[in-house]
């Protein structure tokens, strides 16, 4: 204790005189330094693998690169002109919008219904909150096998059921039809992704205080009125965020479509990511694909801004 006291005095003297033992960094400064060391790996990773490519995307889009690594020359905005004048490009923009709206509509309805069920408090509901995520856990390639099989023309259980119920007379060749193929991939993708939205919606509903509903019941509100005036307003923010995040992720989906239809039949399900992929690697026009990516990113940003303007919940 005496020793400790002495060293304390010594330290104090050093502090005042600025001697060798003076702590150069305060606790906060040490925390900052350690903190930066800890975020550094993540930030570097993001910088190299995500931020840098955005710039090299811009650079590539100004060249006539056909294959990565092959010599190419600067062609200024030619790729952009080609992109903007390309009918297939705008056709795939339109298909992307159909894809987006179909998924958002179907996904939101199914997820909201599921979330309302998950909110019940009995045993099955509590287990379902976890197990509902199964379709999301399954790898996309398995999802593609599942739905190709379910919707198969000859052996698919859905076609067989439709015929037995006399809804259709002949089997539907869903992935072989220009109109139905899009419906098919939307169904498969919704099945894959709705559980995630359902769980997030359930989480938002779960945080609504129960006494709100009790008060509403005492005020005489029926189930629909409770849903309309308590549940919906309470999850408004989450629905908005889900719309934004889910929308951007949906537009970005490549694997589900490519694994099921390869963008076909012909180009019926060729959304933007599929078109860009095909242009870059099948058509071997990397420069053009880069320009398409840049234009697509601009369109996405515009769409997201528009959505935020229109749909953002009002702040009180």
């Amino acid at each position, binding site marked *: 204790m005496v020793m400790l006291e002495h060293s304390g005095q010594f330290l104090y003297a050093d502090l005042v005189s600025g001697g060798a033992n003076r702590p150069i960094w305060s606790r906060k400064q040490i925390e900052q330094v350690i903190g*930066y060391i800890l975020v550094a790996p993540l930030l570097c990773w993001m910088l190299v*693998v995500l931020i840098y490519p955005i710039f090299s*995307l811009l650079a590539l889009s100004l060249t006539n690169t056909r294959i990565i690594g092959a010599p190419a020359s600067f062609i200024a905005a030619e790729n952009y002109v080609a992109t903007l004048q390309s009918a297939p490009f705008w056709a795939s923009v339109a298909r992307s919008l159909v894809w987006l709206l179909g998924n958002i509509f179907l996904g939101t309805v199914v997820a909201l219904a599921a979330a309302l069920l998950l909110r019940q408090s009995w045993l099955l509901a509590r287990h379902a909150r976890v197990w509902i995520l199964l379709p999301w856990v399954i790898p996309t390639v398995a999802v593609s096998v599942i739905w190709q099989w379910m919707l198969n023309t000859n052996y698919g259980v859905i076609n067989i059921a439709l015929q037995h119920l006399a809804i259709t007379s002949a089997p539907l060749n869903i992935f072989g039809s220009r109109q139905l193929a899009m419906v098919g991939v939307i169904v498969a993708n919704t099945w894959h992704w709705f559980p995630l939205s359902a769980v997030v919606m359930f989480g938002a509903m779960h945080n609504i205080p129960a006494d709100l509903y009790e008060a509403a019941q005492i005020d005489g509100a029926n189930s629909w009125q409770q849903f309309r005036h308590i549940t919906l307003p309470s999850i408004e923010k989450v629905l908005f965020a889900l719309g934004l995040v889910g929308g951007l992720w949906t537009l970005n989906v490549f694997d589900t479509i490519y694994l099921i239809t390869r963008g076909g039949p012909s180009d019926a399900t060729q959304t933007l990511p599929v078109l860009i992929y095909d242009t870059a690697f099948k058509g071997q026009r990397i420069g053009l694909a880069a320009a398409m990516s840049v234009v697509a990113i601009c369109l996405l940003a515009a769409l997201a801004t528009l959505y935020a303007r229109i749909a953002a919940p009002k702040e009180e």
Partner: protein
Amino acid sequence: MTISPLNALLRWVVWAALVFLVVGPIYWVVSASFKETAEIIRPVPTLWPHRVVFENYAYLFTSTKYPRYLLNSLIVAAATMMVTTAITTIAGYAIYRLRVWGADWMSRAILLIYLAPTTLLLVPIYSLLAAVGLVNTLAGLVIVNVAFASPFCVWLLRGFYEAIPISLHEAAEVDGAGPMTIFWRIYLPLLAPGIGTIVLYAFIYSWTEFAFASQLIVTDGLKTLPMGLGALVGSYYINWGLLMAGASLATLPAVLLFAIVGRYFVRGLTSGAVIG
């Protein structure tokens, strides 16, 4: 509240529909994988395998490269999972607890990045990896997967970090622990559910990733499951039994992991801190 018989019936019907929607398609394919080919393609399908056979699985393991794909997928997913977990957990500590200067800004930037259109970056990332010779390597795949899985993981971790009272941090500081000691001895043990969550997300992300894997990998022996199985789908003659066995088996590791940490993942998603 009392429930009328009609409501009770309705409730069961609705629940049956949900269970059917979630489990039905999975059951249909898994059960078919145990059927003989003749039974699979019968005009009137059978609800369960009348004769349980393992020939589809046997064929998968003896006559295709499936085991190789499975192994590659496991390697890539395990590496992605470990690296992602490590870098996002420590980054989360710096951003959400040490509050480094610019933490709010970083947090927002990461949110923005996780909205980024990943497939649209396929071209430049491919050329970046080509420049450093990582095309056609599993390591290149891991690097890409970590980059894309990390932003969402950091975002998920936020809720878990914020659920730990700051007073625990301060108490440990008063008790004599430095920032790293506090991380190891206070945060890590309490963060276990959060780590379970990001382990699952990173694994699933990598396990299911197709777009980059299909372009970055050329050599057959380096392909991962999504490509390997995808190739079987696209082949001229579709052997459905084989395909369904492959799909069922591809699902298994993800489901097993989910069974262990799934409830933490749900807790992370529903904590309310993720969105809003």
